[in-house]
C-alpha cells in the first residue's frame, strides 16, 4: 500500500500493514519530539545568548510540576506504544491453527526448503497467496535468521532446536529472502527469493517442479531403512512405543515425569535416546546422531505426525 513512497519495502503479508502503521506512528512521534527539542535548544541559544549588556542568567532551580509532567507524559506514551506493539507481536508469534507446514534447514551458506507436498528447493521459497504457512526451521551449524522484509518478519534459526515462524502472503511477487544473523564468511550471500504466486499458479508450479515424495512418504521409507521398525513394530510386545495416535499427547516417562510428544521431543529421542525413556520400556535405543541429517529427521517427524492424523490414515490422538 506504500507503493508510491520509496521509503517502505513491499508490504505483502497479512500483518505487514499493521507493522507499517505502527512504524509510521512512531516516526511521527519521534519527529514531533526531535523538532520540539531542537527548536527549544536553538531558540534558547539565540534568545538567551550572551552579549554586552545582556540581562544575565535567571537562576531557576527546578520545578516539581514540570518534572512530573515530563516523567508522566513520556511514560504514558511509551506504555501506549508498548500495548500497541504487543498486540502486533501476538499476531506475529501465534500461528493460526491450520497453517501449512514447510520445513527449512539452514546451513552455511544456504537455505534448504521442503514443501508439504514434497518439493524441495534451495534459496527459493514458492508460496501461494492467501494460505497461512508455518515454517519449521533448524540449523545444521551456527545460528542463522530467516528474514523476509516484505512480510515484516524474521526468526532465528538455531542449531539443535526447532524454531517456527508463520505468515500469510497477500500479494503475488518476488521478494528478498535474507539471512539476518551473522553466520560467517558468506553471510551476505545466504540470500534468496520468496516467490508468492496466485493459488492456481502455485498448483501449476507444484506440478511442474520435480515433485519428490512427500515428507511423510520419505519418512516412512527412512523409518524402515534406519531400522526403527525393528523395535517400534506397533505390536503389543514391541520393544519400543507404538506411535499411532501419540502425536501431541502427554507421554509418561520412566522417571515419573511426562512430556508432550512433539517435534522437539522426537528429535531429542532420535539423537539422544538416553535423555528420556517412556514408562514401561527399557532404554535400548541406539543414537542416530551423525547418521541422520536434520532434513531426514524432519521427514521422520512428518511421518510420525501422519500416524496420528485421521485424514492420512492415522489414528486419532
Amino acid at each position, binding site marked *: 500500500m506504500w507503493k508510491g513512497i520509496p521509503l517502505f519495502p513491499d508490504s505483502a503479508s497479512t500483518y505487514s500493514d499493521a507493522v507499517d502503521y505502527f512504524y509510521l506512528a512512531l516516526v511521527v512521534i519521534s519527529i514531533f519530539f526531535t523538532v520540539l527539542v531542537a527548536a527549544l535548544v536553538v531558540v534558547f541559544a539565540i534568545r538567551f545568548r550572551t552579549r554586552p549588556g545582556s540581562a*544575565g*542568567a535567571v537562576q531557576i532551580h527546578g520545578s516539581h510540576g514540570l518534572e512530573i509532567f515530563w516523567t508522566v507524559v513520556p511514560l504514558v506514551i511509551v506504555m501506549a506504544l508498548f500495548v500497541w506493539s504487543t498486540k502486533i507481536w501476538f499476531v506475529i508469534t501465534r500461528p493460526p491453527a491450520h497453517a501449512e507446514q514447510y520445513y527449512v534447514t539452514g546451513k552455511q551458506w544456504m537455505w534448504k526448503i521442503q514443501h508439504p507436498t514434497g518439493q524441495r528447493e534451495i534459496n527459493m521459497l514458492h508460496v501461494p497467496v492467501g494460505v497461512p504457512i508455518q515454517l519449521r526451521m533448524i540449523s545444521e551449524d551456527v545460528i542463522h535468521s530467516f528474514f523476509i522484509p516484505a512480510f515484516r518478519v524474521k526468526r532465528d534459526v538455531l542449531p539443535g532446536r526447532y524454531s517456527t515462524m508463520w505468515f500469510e502472503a497477500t500479494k503475488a511477487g518476488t521478494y528478498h529472502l535474507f539471512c539476518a544473523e551473522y553466520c560467517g564468511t558468506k553471510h551476505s550471500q545466504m540470500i534468496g527469493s520468496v516467490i508468492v504466486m496466485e493459488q492456481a499458479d502455485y498448483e501449476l508450479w507444484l506440478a511442474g517442479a520435480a515433485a519428490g515424495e512427500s515428507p511423510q512418504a520419505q519418512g516412512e521409507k527412512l523409518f524402515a531403512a534406519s531400522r526403527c521398525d525393528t523395535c517400534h513394530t506397533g505390536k503389543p510386545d514391541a520393544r519400543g512405543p507404538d506411535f499411532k495416535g501419540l502425536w501431541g499427547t502427554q507421554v509418561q516417562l520412566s522417571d515419573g515425569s511426562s512430556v508432550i510428544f512433539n517435534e522437539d521431543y522426537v528429535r531429542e529421542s532420535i539423537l539422544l535416546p538416553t535423555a528420556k525413556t517412556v514408562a514401561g520400556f527399557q532404554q535400548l535405543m541406539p543414537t542416530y546422531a551423525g547418521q541422520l541429517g536434520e532434513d531426514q529427521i524432519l521427514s521422520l517427524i512428518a511421518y510420525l505426525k501422519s500416524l496420528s492424523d485421521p485424514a492420512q490414515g492415522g489414528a486419532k490422538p
Partner: protein
Amino acid sequence: MSSTVATPAAEPRTNYLNVDYGWKSWVFSTDHKRIAVMYLITIAFMILVGGSFAILVRLELATPAGDMLQSETYNKIFTMHGVVMVFFFLIPGVPAVLGNFLVPIMIGAKDLAFPKVNLLSYYIFLVGILLTLLAAAMGGIDTGWTFYTPYSSTYSNGQVALAAVAVFITGFSSILTGLNFVVTIHKMRAPGMTWFRLPLFIWAHYATSLIILLSTPVVAITIVLVALERLFHVGVFDPTYGGDPVLFQHMFWFYSHPAVYIMILPAMGVISELISAFSKKRVFGYPVVAFSSLAIAVIGFFVWGHHMFVTGQSTYAGVVFSVITMLVAVPSAIKVFNWVSTMYKGDIWMTTPMCFAIAFIGLFTVGGLTGIFLGTMGLDIHMHDTYFVVAHFHYVMVGGMVTAFWGGLHFWWPKMFGRMYPENMGRVSAAIIFIGFNMTFFPQFILGYMGMPRRYHFYPEEWQVLNVLSTAGATLLGLGYLLPMVYLPWSLKFGKVAGKNPWAAKGLEWETDSPPTTFNFDKVPVVTEEAYAYPEGARHQPEAKVV
C-alpha cells in the same frame, strides 16, 4: 575564584606536567592526571585504528558488489572496528581520560583512593590492546564484536581465543577503575562536599562505576566459557557438545546492555557540566538528573532480552523485556528535558564545547527515540539485525558519547594543559562533525526499514544510492574528527595561555591552577556551597577573555 580575566603570566609555576620530564616519571607515575594523559594518548591511537577500519567498511559499501575486499577480510574488518571502538574507546573514553583527571579534583582530593591500582589498570588496558592487535596481526577474528556462539566457539577460524583473552583482560582494567572511583567518591570528598553538592559529572561516574562492578565479571565469565569450549570442547554453547547456543546471548547481553550505559552515563555527566557552565546556571532539577542516572543504572540490568526478541525466547519473556525497556527510556527523556530547561533564561555562550553539547542533545534524542522503535517487539521483529539497529546505536554512541567526549575534551583542555585551543577551528569542526554524522547515519535508518541486514558485504543494487550517501558522510565525519586531532596538539605549544578559569565556571577544578600541581590543591579546599552556584544575573564576559 572570581578571576574571570585570565592571568597573562607566560608560564605557570610547577605543575603536574613540568614537575619532571624523565620518561620514568611518566611510565611509573601514579598521578591520576598523568595517567589520564597516558590514557588520552592511547585512546587517540585506538580511535585512529578503529576509524581506519570504519572507513574501509564504508568504502567497500559504496558499491553493492563486494569488489574491494574479500568477504572474509570484510568480516574481519567490521569485527575489528567494533571490538576496538567498543572496548578500547567507547567504554574507557570518558571515565579513563576525563574521569581520571577530574574525579579527584572535582571532589577536592589529592588523587584517587588507590593511585597504584590506577596505574595498574592502565597497564592492564595496554596489555588488552596489545593482545587485540596481536590477534589482528595473526589473522584477525571474524565473529563480530558480539562473539555469538556457536559461530565463535566452534566454527570461526580466526584468533577468537586470543581476542577473548584480550577482552577478558581489558575488563579488569574497567573493574579496577570503577572500584577506584566508588571508593574515592565515598571516602575522599573535601570537607563540606556533601552528596548533593557533587557535580553531576561525579554522580554519573558513580552510577557508571556501580554498573561496571556488577556487570563486567559476567562478561568475563562468558568469555572464559567461549574460550574453554573452543579449546577443550566443553559443551556450554554448542549443541553438538550438548550446550545451549542461546545461553551465550543471555550472558553476553546481561553485560552488554548495561555496558551501553557504561558508555553513555559518563557522557551525560559531561553534558550536564557543559550546559551549566555555558548557560551560567545551575542544572535544572539537579536531584532529578542525579537520580535518573541511578535509575538508568538499575533498570538497565533488566532489559537485556530486548536484544533477543527473535531468538525464540518465550512470547511472554519478550513482553516483560519490552515493558522494562520502555521504562528505561523515561529517565533518558527526563535528562534531555532538564538540560533544555537549564538553557532557559540562561546566559548562553556558544563556545566549541557548548556547540558539541547542543549537538549531543539533538543526536541523543534521535538515538533514544529510535531505541523505542527497537524496544517495541512488533516492530523489532522486522528491524532486528538490520541497518536500523546500526543507525540507532551509532546515534547514541557516536552521536552521543563521542560528541560529549569532544565537548568535554575542549572544555577541560585548558585545565589539562594550560592552553586554549583555537576557538573558531573548534566551532567549524563541531559543525562538520554534526553534518557528517547525520549524513552518514540517517540514511541507515531508511536502509534498515527497507530490510538491509547488518554485516552484509554484498547488498541488492536498489540500495546503492543511500549507501553512497552514507559513505560520503563518513568521509566528512572523518575529516571533522581529524581536525581536533591536529589543532589540539598544535595548541599545546601555540595556544594562548588559559589561566585558572577561562570560562569563569563554577567547580573546584576551576579553582586550581591550569595545569594543576601534582597534588591538585595547595591546601584542602572547603566547600560551602552547592554545585553550580552561579549568582542571580551571572553573565559571561567573553569580550574580556582570552578567547
